[in-house]
């Protein structure tokens, strides 16, 4: 019985060591897991996620969008879906209907005009926002509310193709992964010692048996 338990602990420990090792290598010391970039042909003024596209909350993510036109003014922001729908009502855009990891975006075009009713940076609806020329980097915590991520052209012309990449930042992920390695190694050691104890406990019995024979 001890041998079986010991074997299982060793197996679990080895798996944990492997998983922890892979996670530590993926996140690295900056606790950031970067996904490969995805190119999107954006129709209209911007790229906007619908609430169901981002089904998870929790970790901090960094979204980077790069326009083909290097002098294009870009705005990126996160706001509640009610606010985003109101602000972009009647504006031509591309909606991201689903996000798969590693990064793949499913999209649909929405017809409308190219004009935004206001400079997005002047609004108070954003939970997080950033601006850039040619490229924009937006860092935010994936919210629990029905929030949308938007990337807009602010110079009244179509965005065109955008190269989008994302990275997930999980504070303590590297330490956690290393802790997993340590925990796995510990479990394996416990399992090994259980098997070892059984071997050692057999030796006196064998001796006693030998003595009886003599």
């Amino acid at each position: 019985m001890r041998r079986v338990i010991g074997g299982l602990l060793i197996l679990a420990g080895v798996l944990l060591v492997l998983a922890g090792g892979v996670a530590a290598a993926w996140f690295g010391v900056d606790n950031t897991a970067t996904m490969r970039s995805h190119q999107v042909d954006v129709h209209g003024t911007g790229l906007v996620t619908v609430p169901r596209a981002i089904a998870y909350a929790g970790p901090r993510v960094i979204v980077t969008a790069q326009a083909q036109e290097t002098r294009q003014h870009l705005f990126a922001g996160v706001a509640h879906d009610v606010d985003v729908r109101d602000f972009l009502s009647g504006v031509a855009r591309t909606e991201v209907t689903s996000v798969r990891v590693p990064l793949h975006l499913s999209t649909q075009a929405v017809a409308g005009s190219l004009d935004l009713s206001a400079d997005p940076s002047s609004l108070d609806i954003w939970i997080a926002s950033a601006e850039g020329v040619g490229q924009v980097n937006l860092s935010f915590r994936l919210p629990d509310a029905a929030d949308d991520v938007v990337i807009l052209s602010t110079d009244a012309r179509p965005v065109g193709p955008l190269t989008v990449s994302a990275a997930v930042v999980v504070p303590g992920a590297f330490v956690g992964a290393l802790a997993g390695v340590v925990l796995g190694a510990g479990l394996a050691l416990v399992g090994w010692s259980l098997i070892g104890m059984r071997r050692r406990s057999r030796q006196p019995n064998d001796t006693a048996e030998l003595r009886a024979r003599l």
Partner: protein
Amino acid sequence: MVVAPVLATLLTLPAACDLPHRKDLDDLSKVAAGRSTAASVLLNYDSVRANADARWSDSTLATVEGGPLLRIDAGAYLVSFRLSPDQPLETTPLSGPGVVASPRFGSYPLWFVAELPVPDAGVSRMSLFARKSTTDPWRMMYGPEIAVDATLPEFRTDDPGAAVSVSPHDADGVVMSPARACRDYAKVLQARSSPLRRMFVRDAFLQQMREIQDAQAKLAYASFRQTWSIMPVRYALRLDDGGVLVFATLVRTDRYHVDPGGYLRWNGNSAAKAYLPHGVRHWARLQYDHQILMEIPPVGGGKPAVIGQYGGVVSGVGS
């Protein structure tokens, strides 16, 4: 020997990681404003209001007020400017917010109610702020005053703590719908013999208006007629006891017909004097907007009553 580090790792691992979790996307609505948003809206209101008061500037005030409330305050500016041009309006800053009640919305416009005590005046303003769209500012649309020591009915809240709005024509659980209550109340104000008067509490506002009617009816050399109408009712909230709290605006028109050879003028303290400084020889028409806060009790809980009001003269013509 191995147990200690294993336990330490198990205890610290969940805290160390901000792990992803599925979020609930069944409800895509949002609460119009939490306490911090209400506080920031109030701070902006107070600052703009002080600036507008100092210059009697209704265009400045229009960035933070709207609807009939703006008409009432713009009317107050005109009265103050014409009657006391050397004495700018004294701003009474609002404090708080006290109670903040905000329903959930699936689309714009958004609105919320905040109780804003005015300690210097001994009253609280039950202010309703609305926002038409993301590109519009929050504007105070209603500001009826209630006595600071008055018992404010508690608002009903749903599971996440949002207030529950009521459709103006919804009479579910209450003695009458908000729209009907306000319409019938206006009829009672206009005709003191209306059979509808039995449906309402003879509240302080009703008594005050009766006193004005009685005083004006005694004018020598002029006949007086007062009519009342109601602006469309839009905002109502469910109360904890099942009743409803309604924000509404009543429009009062005072008409005077001066007898031939007579003359009618208003005394120095009257707001009407700002509109008709030289009096009239033939006729005059003054319009007042009164914002009221009406509590409609649940069925079996009594009669509707106006528990707060704010109003003033908004126009005056005559010859």
